[in-house]
């Protein structure tokens, strides 16, 4: 008998359960994959350089993921109990004992959770390999990803299954109990207009000011390192967005619908007379869920933005630091050439550039102090003859202009200002120089900033030290073996420069030493002998790939969770709501019109959160995009998110229409 009851209620809500179970299984599967990756030998092998990090990252990520998934399950699992309210109350009226009904709620949850776990674990076994290959692909590692699930992981998963299922079932049982205790249901929503309208208006004001503030943030963000204003603005925007959205949902949406309803010429024509009320009722029920989804979508978008710009910044920084796969200087070029010949490296291109090192002094705006240091000079024509990619992060100059290439003061905030009045030892002062961040031959190849100067200036300037830089590009890497590298290790430092600063530049001088000085004095600089940037590039790609993988996984999971919450809210109509649709059909409303109501409901439910989320995530762009135009890639990322989200809307519409139609044909 009870078996029958459980079976029936499971099959009654099978569409909704299907979506819920799939979402849960996805979460469980992803969790299992993350967990087992921590112990995966081939991942450890591929990521040797990041070895200690893997365990920590996967443990942290899977932990965080599990927590979110659990909250989701508690929250959404409760929908199903609520949905069966009437049934439970009828059971009680029919004389079923309370504990039996509570047990039904409990057992249902156990069954659903068990199914979700079984599917999730299957998903994990099937897709572990696939996910691993995807990860390796993103990391650009050519290795086979071996399937591996440790015994310890199986134990962990099992205890988690038992634990979480128990907790969820108890929670649902308690929810069932609560339903039985308070039987009254608030059917007609009391609307306190005196409260709602001001609240809605205030919400709109908050949202508008947040937008204005965002525009300011676009302008102010670059001052973040020395002004507290941007942080205050960010704080305000977040607060105003979150609160404002809720107030608008709470006060404004119902008011708009109500006003539309009051305009009889609109409301009394056609199906509107019903659909406005219906929509209002549905929206009322879902206000907090819409809000929740909006804020989380905004969070997801902000996260994506953050990750994108973070990745960009690191990538750029990396690009400016490592332009050639292999670079050398005068002292080491011979040895390196010999070693390269030995192992038949396929050289794609070789470059060489003469440089002069001289002493400079100037007032730096970014650090707000006087600086004296050696600087590497390169002529304009030499600079122009290097591959284009070397100049990507730099301002364009013509043959009469100066360009100072320096480290970025911060990874995120580039300030494209000019430098002025740079004194050069025994050479004319440089009045103004443009600024860039891409070092030809890499920033670690030599000490300090670099200056590109007009050819004439270069030829006539004196040099404390003269040198020539060499760079190679290869097809498929430099192929230097481990033993070769060990041999080359002793050439890592070419020479050392000890600077003797005196009161004026012209009296200061640089002393070149071949031997490493005993003490690292503040004024001693090292000239690198060679730089093997190709392998660093590899490490970077691997780290970046891992990072992209995690971010992508998280955003997809978040999207699935949010989408399924909305879909379930739409699917789980109260009985009387779907009866109303049936009634409409009986009195002669065409199917297409009922369909229209369902479409409208779906569009509204999905559109409102995404629109508000997009408005809010605008601030995230402002935070990271520093007053530049909104880049194409970020639009693409957002577009992708919206497309996936819309896909959920479409599925939700299809399923919900199917459900209604089934009821019609009873």
């Amino acid at each position, binding site marked *: 008998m009870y078996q029958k009851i459980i079976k029936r209620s499971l099959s009654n809500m099978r569409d909704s359960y299907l979506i819920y179970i799939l979402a849960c299984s996805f979460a469980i599967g992803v969790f299992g994959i993350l967990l087992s990756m921590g112990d995966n030998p081939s991942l450890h092998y591929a990521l040797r350089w990041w070895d200690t990090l893997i365990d920590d990252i996967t443990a942290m990520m899977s932990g965080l993921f599990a927590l979110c998934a659990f909250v989701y399950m508690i929250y959404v699992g409760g929908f199903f109990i609520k949905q069966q309210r009437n049934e439970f109350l009828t059971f009680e009226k029919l004389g079923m004992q309370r504990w039996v009904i509570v047990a039904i709620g409990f057992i249902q949850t156990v069954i659903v959770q068990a199914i979700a776990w079984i599917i999730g674990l299957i998903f994990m076994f099937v897709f572990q390999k696939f996910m691993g290959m995807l990860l390796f692909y993103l990391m650009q590692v050519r290795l086979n990803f071996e399937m591996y699930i440790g015994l310890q992981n199986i134990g962990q998963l099992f205890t988690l299954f038992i634990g979480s299922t128990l907790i969820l079932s108890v929670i649902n049982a308690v929810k069932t109990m609560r339903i039985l205790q308070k039987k009254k249901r608030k059917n007609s929503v009391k609307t306190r207009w005196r409260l709602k309208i001001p609240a809605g208006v205030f919400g709109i004001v908050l949202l508008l000011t947040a937008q204005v503030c965002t525009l300011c943030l676009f302008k102010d963000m670059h001052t973040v390192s020395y002004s507290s204003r941007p942080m205050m603005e960010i704080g305000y925007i977040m607060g105003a967005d979150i609160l404002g959205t809720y107030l608008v949902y709470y006060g404004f949406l119902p008011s708009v619908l109500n006003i539309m309803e009051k305009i009889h010429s609109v409301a*009394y*024509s*056609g199906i509107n*007379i019903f659909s406005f*009320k219906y929509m209002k009722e549905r929206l009322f029920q879902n206000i907090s869920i819409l809000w929740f989804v909006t804020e989380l979508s905004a969070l997801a978008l902000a996260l994506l933005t953050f990750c994108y710009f973070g990745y960009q910044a690191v990538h750029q920084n990396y690009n400016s630091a490592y332009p050639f796969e292999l670079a050398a200087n005068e002292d080491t070029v011979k040895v390196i050439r010999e070693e390269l010949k030995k192992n038949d490296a396929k050289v794609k291109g070789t470059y060489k550039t003469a440089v002069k090192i001289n002493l400079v002094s100037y007032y730096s705006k970014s650090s707000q102090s006087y600086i004296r240091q050696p600087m590497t000079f390169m002529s304009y024509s030499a600079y122009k003859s290097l591959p284009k990619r070397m100049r990507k992060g730099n301002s364009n100059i013509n043959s009469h202009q100066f360009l100072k290439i320096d480290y970025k003061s911060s990874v995120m905030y580039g300030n494209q200002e000019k430098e002025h009045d740079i004194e050069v030892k025994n050479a004319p002062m440089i009045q103004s120089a443009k600024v860039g961040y891409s070092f030809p031959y890499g920033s670690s190849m030599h000490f300090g900033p670099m200056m590109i100067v007009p050819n004439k200036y270069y030829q006539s300037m004196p040099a404390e030290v003269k040198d020539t830089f060499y760079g190679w590009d290869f097809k498929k890497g430099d192929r230097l073996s481990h033993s070769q590298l060990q041999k080359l290790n002793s050439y890592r430092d070419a020479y050392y420069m000890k600077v003797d600063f005196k009161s004026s530049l012209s009296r200061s001088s640089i002393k070149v030493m071949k031997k490493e000085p005993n003490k690292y004095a503040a004024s001693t600089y090292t000239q690198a002998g060679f730089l093997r940037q190709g392998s660093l590039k590899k490490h970077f790609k691997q780290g970046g790939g891992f990072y992209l993988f995690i971010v992508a996984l998280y955003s997809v999971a978040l999207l699935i969770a949010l989408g399924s919450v909305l879909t379930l809210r739409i699917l789980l109509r109260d009985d009387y709501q779907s009866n109303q649709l049936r*009634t409409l059909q*009986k*009195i*002669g409303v065409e199917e297409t019109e009922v369909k229209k109501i369902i479409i409208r409901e779906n569009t509204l439910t999905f559109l409102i959160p995404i629109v508000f989320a997009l408005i809010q995530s605008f601030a995230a762009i402002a935070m990271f995009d520093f007053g530049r135009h909104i880049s194409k890639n970020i639009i693409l990322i957002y577009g992708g998110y919206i497309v996936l989200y819309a896909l959920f809307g479409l599925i939700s519409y299809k399923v919900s229409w199917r459900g209604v139609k089934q009821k019609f044909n009873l």
Partner: protein
Amino acid sequence: MQIAVKNISKDFGKKRSTVHAIKDISLKVEHGEFMGIMGPSGAGKTTLLNMISTNERPDHGQVIIDGLDITQMHDREQAKYRRNKMGFIYQSFELLDSLNVKENVILPLALNRSNKKLIEERFNYMMQLLNIEKLSKRAIDELSLGQRQIVAAARALINSPEILFADEPTGSLDSKSATILLNYMQMINKKEKTTILMATHDAFTASYCSRVVFIKDGVVFSEIVNPGNRDKFFEQIINMQRTIGGGDYFNVSKNY
């Protein structure tokens, strides 16, 4: 409107537990006729009305209204037909809970996008006529069953349908309200030549009809035509009910 029902049948349920709700029924309803359908519970009255009113499709047979075979129409056309020509008083009322009384009543007019003045006019007229003006702002779930029934009747009659389907329209009404409603139905039947099909258990209600068809177990059992005298007709109906009842229920009442 003239309705011709030809050999329709309808089964419910799957193989083993099939219910033959309607076995083989043929009927003819003339234009402007007020026809009653009587029979014990589960006889198939509601099912028959649903099939004639295009709410359900028969498994076999045809329903021809004014020469048009409506069973061959698409769902969409059926819905349009239903909306424009038919009015319904359902046994279970089928009122929309989220709308108030007024909105429920004017729904058929609003669906046809009638102009606002006409809507107000017809609404006030109906409310006055059925004596329920004071209900117009109330919510449906605050109404008694009888009040709901009369609101459902107002909704069915507001757009002066050409065919009115009434399934137990007086089942929950007190005799005064029932008399008002029946008189009105009779009036529109006489004046506007509205064709009315009404299913009922109640002999008094049925005595307003011009003809009553008795069905039992999904087939037509017999039929009585109103001889022009309501009391006599009432008597005949009671007698027929006794015959159909097979002596069980009605014999008990006779023995008292």
